[in-house]
Structure formats: C-alpha cells, structure tokens
C-alpha cells in the first residue's frame, strides 16, 4: 500500500516538475506546491462524488454528482496527462473547482461548502499561480456571486434552498468574502516575493563570498610568487654578487702583501688590476640586471599590444648589428594583437634576438624567423634561429637566474636574459620553452594567453 502511494506520488511529481530542478526560481516552488496539492486533491475529488450521489438520490440534485465526477476526471487528467503546460494545468484545476463551486453555491448559498470553495480558490490560485491570476479569481468570485444574486433577485433560483436567504444578508456576506479573497490575493504573493528576494539575496551573498574568496586566493598566489622572487633575489645577492666581491678583496690583499714586501712586479700588478676592473664591471652588470628583473611589470599596466609593431621596432633596433653580421630577419606571418605589457614584450624579443645572434654558428650567416600560431586560449609567439642550438639537458636550466651554458671568458653577459623572458611570460600568465638540438638551431616559444585582464584602453 505504502509503495503504491509512493509510486503514485512520484508519478504526479514527475508529470508536473519534469526536468525543472532550478530551485532558485519561485516558479519551481510554485510547481512543487501544485504537484503536492494535486497528490492530495485527486483522492479528495474522487471522494466528493459520493455525497453528490447521496444528494441526488435524497434531494434530486442531479447536477451535483455530474460536476463532481467531471471535476474528478479533469483533476485526473491534470495529474497524469503529459504535454500540458503547468499554467494550463493550474487553470484547468481552478476552473474545475469553480464549476463545482458555482453549482454548490446556487444550491446551498451562504451556508454550503460553495462559499468556502470560492474563498479557497483564491488562496489556491495565489499559492500556485503568479499574482495576476489570484487577482482574476477575486474578479471571478465577485462575478459568480453577482450572477447568483441577480438570479435570486429575479426569482430564477426559487426552487433551490438558496432562495431562503434574504437578499441583503447575501450581499453583505458576499462583499466580505470578496474583500477577504482580495486581501489574500494580495498578501500571499507578496509574502512569496519577499521570501524569494531573501533567498536570492542569500544566494547572491554566497556567490559574492565565493568570488571574494577566489580573489583572496589569487592575491595570495601573487604574494607567494613575490615572496619566492624576493627569496631568489636575496639568495642571489648573497651568492652571485658576493662572489666577485670576495675575489676583488682577495686580489687586493695579495697585491697589498706584495707591495708591503716590495716584491710586486709591475706586470703582475697590472694584470691584477685588469681582473679587479673586469670583476667590478661584472658586479655592476649583475646589479643592473637584477634591478631590471625586479622591475618587470611593476611600472605599467596591461594594454593592447600590437605585436607586429613591437616586432618591427625591435628588429629596427638591431639593424646596425644585423648589417655587420649579415643577419636575415623574417617575419613569417601577420601577428595578432594581445593584451599585455608592450615594453616587457619588447624586452623579451630583444633578449631572444640578442641570444640568437650571440650564439650564432660561426660558419653560417644568421637567420632569424619570427612568427605566431593561434591557439584556442591564446597565441604562441616564436623566435627561431639557425644558431648553435642547446642540448636537451639544459632546456630547463637556461631559464634560471644567473645560469649560463658557457664560461664567462667565452660569452659576456650576466646570465639573466632568459630569466627575464621567463618572468615576462609569467607576468602575462603564459610560459616560455625551447625546442632545440645541439648544432641545429633553436626555437623559443612564448605562450601568451587571451586573458580577461583588466586593461587601459
């Protein structure tokens, strides 16, 4: 028995609610209430056929069982027939109640169940339908009462029990009923709206809180990145910058000792001086590039960057050097526009081109190809050369701060260029990597994502 009831209940709920599970919407809850009401209303409307039949047999009111049966059939249809819109189902239910109500009213008048039905219909409409429908039922109520009053007045209902009421009572009580149903038609939807507002406000707050939290996490991530960077710089100042410093001190000590002992040779002294000078140069180069490194992205905001223009400018800056080395530059396609930091992107290109020229093959004329590939979530910029290439073992290491692949005596430079490039790519939320084999050139790729970064127009 229990399981049959459950099956029946879920069948009705399924017919009404279907796939709609949007609990944020008031309509969902109205439909849900409607379905729940139907579950109980169907057996109830079946049971009301019995007193109808009894009234027919005892008093000859033939209309009562007919409309009661009719309503049962309609409620049955409303509960189970698929493919009807929920608004129509509700209107059908309310309409069926109205038919029964009108018949009851015209038989029994104020004391009969019809009057309660009339009021109940408005409440039901207010619960399951939008506000305007509840107002319509108030109008219907007034119209039905008006119709019966008119019939009474002209003696059209003289055979029915209703005719025993004085017309004045009828009018007064009817007015009160219409007024009450009007109050409920106003109050219930208002209550619903207020509740919904409250709930949706709460939802909004929850969403805002989630957004705030996400923002907080982002900021925390940025903070962590900054801290890491500071630690890295800290380590470097204590390590890489100390090294030439100590060396200078050692050389000076040595020189001093020699001078005190009066044993230094002019030639050795001048050699020592040369080393001290080059060490100081190196230190100042390192300090300079470290400052540059920490400044990346600090003094500007993301803007529209026309990559083609930036590439053009950068190549122009290399024109003098390019002439000397007989470099062939080639821009392989029209480059897109990105949102980013134009000064930094130019720096990145400068480093990559500078490296391509620095590590060219002695025997070949340098060729540098620049281009881009469109990806779904961004673009990949590439700088390709025909230079010496890099072994796979060092494809990661080269992007570290002060990492070098060649001894100082062979190639000058602070060993910071690619670390700059990496930081610039990361500043854009992108990344940098290299594809290369020793002896057969390198391709540096920079992925720049299409972000929803806020930017200055």
């Amino acid at each position, binding site marked *: 028995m229990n399981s049959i009831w459950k099956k029946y209940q879920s069948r009705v709920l399924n017919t009404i609610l279907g796939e709609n599970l949007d609990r944020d919407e008031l309509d969902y809850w109205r439909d849900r209430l409607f379905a729940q009401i139907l579950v109980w209303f169907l057996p109830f409307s079946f049971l009301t056929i019995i007193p109808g039949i009894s009234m027919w047999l005892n008093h000859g009111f033939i209309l009562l069982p007919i409309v009661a049966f009719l309503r049962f059939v309609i409620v049955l249809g409303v509960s189970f027939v698929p493919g009807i819109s929920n608004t129509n189902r509700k209107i059908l239910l309310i309409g069926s109640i109205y038919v029964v109500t009108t018949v009851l009213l015209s038989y029994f008048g104020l004391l009969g169940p019809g009057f309660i039905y009339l009021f109940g219909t408005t409440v039901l409409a207010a619960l399951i339908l939008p506000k305007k429908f509840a107002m319509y039922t108030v109008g219907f109520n007034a119209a039905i009462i008006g119709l019966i009053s008119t019939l009474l007045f002209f003696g059209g209902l003289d055979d029915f029990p209703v005719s025993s009421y004085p017309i004045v009572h009828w009018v007064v009580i009817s007015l009160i009923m219409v007024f009450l149903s009007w109050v409920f038609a106003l109050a219930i939807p208002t209550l619903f709206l207020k509740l919904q507002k409250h709930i949706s406000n709460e939802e909004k707050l929850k969403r805002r809180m989630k957004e705030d939290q996400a923002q907080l996490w982002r900021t925390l991530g940025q903070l962590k990145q900054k801290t890491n960077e500071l630690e890295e710089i800290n*380590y470097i100042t*204590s*390590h*890489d910058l*100390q*090294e*030439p410093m*100590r*060396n200078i001190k*050692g*050389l000076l*000590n*040595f020189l001093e000792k*020699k001078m005190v002992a009066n044993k230094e040779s002019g030639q*050795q002294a001048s*050699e*020592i001086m040369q*080393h001290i000078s*080059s*060490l100081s140069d190196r230190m100042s180069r390192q300090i300079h590039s470290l400052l540059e490194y920490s400044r990346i992205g600090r003094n500007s905001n993301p803007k529209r960057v026309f990559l083609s223009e930036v590439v053009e400018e950068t190549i122009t800056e290399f024109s003098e050097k390019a002439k000397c080395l007989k470099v062939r530059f080639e821009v392989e396609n029209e480059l897109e526009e990105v949102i980013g930091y134009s000064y930094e992107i130019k720096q990145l290109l400068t480093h990559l081109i500078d490296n391509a020229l620095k590590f060219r093959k002695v025997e070949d004329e340098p060729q540098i190809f620049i281009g881009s590939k469109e990806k779904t979530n961004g673009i990949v910029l590439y700088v390709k050369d025909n230079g010496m290439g890099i072994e796979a*073992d*060092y494809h990661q290491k080269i992007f570290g701060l002060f*990492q*070098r*692949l*060649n*001894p*100082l*005596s062979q190639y000058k430079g602070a060993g910071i260029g690619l670390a700059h490039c990496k930081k610039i790519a990361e500043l854009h939320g992108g990344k940098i990597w290299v594809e290369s084999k020793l002896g057969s050139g390198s391709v540096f790729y920079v992925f720049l994502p299409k972000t929803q970064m806020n930017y200055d127009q």
Partner: protein
Amino acid sequence: MTNKFNCILLLDDDPSVNFYHRILIDDLKLTDELLIAEMADDAIFLLEKRLKEKRSFPDLIVLDLNMPRKSGWDFISYLKKRKFPEIFPIKLAIVTASENPDDKNKAENISEVTAYYVKPLGEEEFMELLNMP
C-alpha cells in the same frame, strides 16, 4: 709532511678566480704543474688525456660547484664513477660562493670531498690543504 703538490687542477668558470688562485699558488710555490679548466667537460678531457698518456695525476682538485652546463656535483659523480679517488690520492676541495647550508651538508656526506670552502681560497686554506692527511 709534503711541502708541495705534484699537480693541481683548478676548475672554475670564472677566469678571475682561476687567475687569483693561480698567482697565489705560484707565489706559494705549491706545485710544479698547474692545470686550469673553465668547464667540467674540459677538465674531464684533460684528466682522460693524462691518464692515457700516463702523466702525473692531480693530487689536489679545486672545484667550483656552480658552473655552466655540468655542475661541480656532476664532476664529482664522474670522478667517483671512474674510481679516481680510489686509485689516486686526490684531495678534493670544494670552493664555492655558496654559503647555502644544503650544499655544505651535501658535501659533508660525500667521503671523497676533503674540504669545503667559501671562495676564493687564501694562503691559509692552501696550507691547510697541503697539511691534511
């Protein structure tokens, strides 16, 4: 107690460090033969060549940790793989700019490492190395 090394190998990518160590070694007359390399691969090439030519093998290697391409650690792995510290009496001195305690701990756990110094070495350190068993 020996008063001299047979052969010293300096391995550091910084030519100024090598220069400073060289003039100090010269001044202290610490060795007859001084080998200098700026990259681990060059040093490996030198050692292999000496082995082949059966010339005297360095009994002191002054090794930098942070170098381009192969690091000092890589060079130590090479030495161990070739079993050089077992065959030859090599004193291995790590000299690095790094005061990183991790590096120092790592060095202390390698039995082949004789000493760990912050660079550059001075007269005292060289004498210490000379007098170490």
